[in-house]
Structure formats: C-alpha cells, structure tokens
C-alpha cells in the first residue's frame, strides 16, 4: 500500500495516543499505589489519590481516542468499508463518549458526577462487546472489516476486550472512594486499611491485564504476524 500523507498523519496520532495511554498511566498506577501507604498522613494520601485521578484524565482521553484513530487508519489501509457519514458518526460518538467519561471522572466527588460515570460504564461495556462482535463477525466474512486483515481483526477484538478490562478496573476500584471517606472521618484503622489494600490488590489484575493487552495490540499492529 502507498504511504499517503493522511495515513502518516493518522499513524502518528495513533502512536502519540499509545504514549498518552500506557505511558502516562505509569504515573497513575504509582500514585494510586502510594496512596495506599498507611504510614502517610491522610491529606498526603488523598492528594496522591486525587492526583492519580487527575493524571488519569490523559490515559482516559487516549483510550477513547483509540476508537476514531483506529477507524481512520483502518479506512486508510482499505481494511474497513465505511462511508464519510459513518466516519462522522464514529467521531461524534467518540467525542460524546469522551465527554461523558471526562465529566464522570472530573466530578467523581459529586453525586451527579457518579451517575454520569455510571452511565459511562454502560457505554464502555457496549463498545467493548460491540467491537469484539465486529471482529468475530468480520472474521466470518460478515463484518465491517476485511477478513483478510486478520491482524486488524485481532486488534479490534483485543481493543474491545481492553474496554472490558478497563471497566473491570472501575468496578474493582469502586470501594476505594468510600474507604477514603471513612479514613477522613474515622482515621486509620486496621479494618479500613484492609479494605484499601484489598481493593488495590484486586484492581491490580485488570490494570496489568490492560497494560499487557495494549502492548500486545501494539506488537500485533507492528509485526502483523497474526
């Protein structure tokens, strides 16, 4: 295939997206981990958690950006049959999805913010399942992607799976907010520290699964061995 200027542009953005997603998430992970350190005073721990959630806005944005950027690259490579209207709809959906996700994340301390985030979780689930379905149906010759680009089908399916692991992180991390609320009121107790540690340790599994999957997706895209 010919390397057009638009292909280079989308590919470049695709790589920058990777930087902002997994790369920036290292700081999120380390900050969140440090916030579980019971030897630190509460105000320091809440700052660590708050900063983790603020820095997480970068990976959160990139995770959503992966959808339209991936669609643009797939279309450029001739592996996705999609009209201009379809592309516009993908962009529109992605922007709305991102806005809902960001609103929920920024206003996590407000009741209405939590409701927005809850609605956003349904969207994540829908995107995840939808993309896995699109990859499988395309592999069978009935989907929107070219069946010959098997590496892309793996990418699409695994990106769908990443959405589900990200959702698992959100669900696994959910008890952390109330636990920190109790820390603020009751102070550090073995019971609350146990909840904090347990919540983080449970969330580690989907967190590392997400990192592994995203790096695997990059490996598949570069090597195209599948």
């Amino acid at each position, binding site marked *: 295939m010919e390397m057009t200027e638009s292909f280079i542009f989308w590919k470049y953005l695709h790589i920058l997206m*990777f930087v902002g997603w997994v790369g920036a998430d290292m700081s999120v992970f380390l900050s969140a981990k440090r916030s579980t350190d019971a030897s630190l005073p509460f105000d*320091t721990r809440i700052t660590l958690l708050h*900063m983790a959630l603020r*820095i997480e806005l970068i990976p959160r944005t990139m995770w959503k950006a992966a959808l339209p950027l991936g669609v643009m690259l797939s279309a450029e490579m001739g592996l996705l049959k999609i009209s201009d209207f379809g592309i516009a709809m993908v962009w529109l959906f992605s922007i709305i999805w991102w806005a809902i996700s960001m609103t929920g994340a920024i206003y996590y301390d407000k009741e209405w913010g939590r409701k927005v985030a809850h609605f956003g979780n349904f969207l994540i689930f829908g995107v995840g399942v939808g993309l896995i379905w699109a990859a499988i149906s395309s592999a069978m010759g009935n989907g929107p992607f070219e069946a010959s*680009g098997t590496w892309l089908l793996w990418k699409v399916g695994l990106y769908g799976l990443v959405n589900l692991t990200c959702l698992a992180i959100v669900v696994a991390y959910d008890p952390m907010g109330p636990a920190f609320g109790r820390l603020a009121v009751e102070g550090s107790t073995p019971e609350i520290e146990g909840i904090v540690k347990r919540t983080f340790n449970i969330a580690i599994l989907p967190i590392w699964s997400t990192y592994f999957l995203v790096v695997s997706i990059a490996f598949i895209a*570069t090597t195209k061995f599948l």
Partner: protein
Amino acid sequence: MNKRIIALALLSLCMWFTGAQALTLSAESDGVISGYEVVLVLHQLLFVFWLGPDLGRYIWSTRAANTELSPTTRITAGQMTRKIELFPKVCISLLLTVGGILTEAVGITHPWWQMVGIVLLGPVWLSMVLIGHLRPKTNLGDLINRTDNLFRLFMAAAVLASVTYSWSTGRLDNTPWVTGKLVLFAAIMLFGLVAKLRLRPFDNALVQIETMGPSKSVDTMMTKSLASARPYIFGIWIALAIAAWLGVAQPV
C-alpha cells in the same frame, strides 16, 4: 538451565535479526515476526515509556512546589518525581542501542566494531542508570551520579560528532530523517542536562523542607528553579514528538 534458556532466547533474537526484512508496508498479515519488527516494537515502547511517564513526573513536580500543600505531601510529591523519572532514564539509556540496530534495517550499515559498541552501550548505560538510581549511597552509585552530567555531555558530543562525520561522507544521504532523529537526540540530552542543572535548587529545597520545614525563601527557590527548567522540559517533549514524526513519516 536458566542460563541455557537465556542463551537460546538471545540466539533466537539474533537469528530473527539476521533474517530481518526490509521495511515493508503491508496491510495483509504476513505470518512472520521479523527481527526488524521486534526491535521496532521495542523502539516504540521506549518512546511510550519515556514521554508518557515524563508528563506525570512534571505534574508531580508542580505539586512539590505547591505551597498550599503540607510539607509531608510536598516531600511525597518530590519522592514521586524521583520514582517516576526512572522510566525516562531507562528509556534514554536503551534508545541509541535499539535505534542503532534499527538503522541497519533501513540500509545504514556499521562496521563490526561499531556494531559491538552500539549493542554494548545500552546494557552498560542501563546498568549505570539503575545503580545510580537504586544504589545512590554506594561508592559506585555516588561515582555514577557525580559523573552523570559529564557522561551526558560526552554522549551528546559523541552523537553529534558521529552524525557530522557520517553526513560529510554521504553515508546518511538516503536517510536524512535518521540524521534529524540523531541531532534531536543530542539536543534532548543537552536540554535534559540544562534542566537537571536548573532543577538543582529545587532538589536542595526539597531536602531543606524535609530537614527544616518550608520557608518563604525555600518556596521561592523551588518555584524559580522549576520555572527556569520548564522551557527545557517542554523542549524535550517537543523534540521527542518531532523525532517520532520523523520516524513515522521518514521524509527523504
């Protein structure tokens, strides 16, 4: 047994690399993982784990300078910058080796002695970074950290000298984008060096907060130090972004 497995793995990697294909742009699955592709993935990962964590490191440094936060929180923020900065440091140490191997695949050949140097540079530099970061209070760690600025200056000069020589002999005529990437790497080394020197008062201020608590003069020192390093930190990010674009577009 473990050594045999490692040796086999290294041998396989070398065989992959020996059979590396030329840069191809295929939309189809080829069923093959070439050595070139493996090194290219490594190259991308080094970029990802350099620039991505560096954003977090910068954000945490602004927290450390934030006078509204408690001294413990500011000290912890400083510790976070130290912890996160290991990612960019590790990536810088390996980039020349990985990049040097990649240039073979785009037609820039090296004599065997140069290739040995390129391949050894990564592990040696990485060891220096890890010892300096994880064992700073040992004799070796202290020596590495004290000579770090000189080493960076030497590396920047060596890269620039190598590029200038290769340019003058016409060796890089077909790959001007590689020239651009190497010059940018040298610039990043120099920017990093200047930023590090300008952040010295910032680091000293953190130690003072830890030992004597915050004061007006310490806070001012920190803010000024961070502000003076900021253009160079942003310069590193911009240079990295341009280098990545050169790698993707490969303009001739």
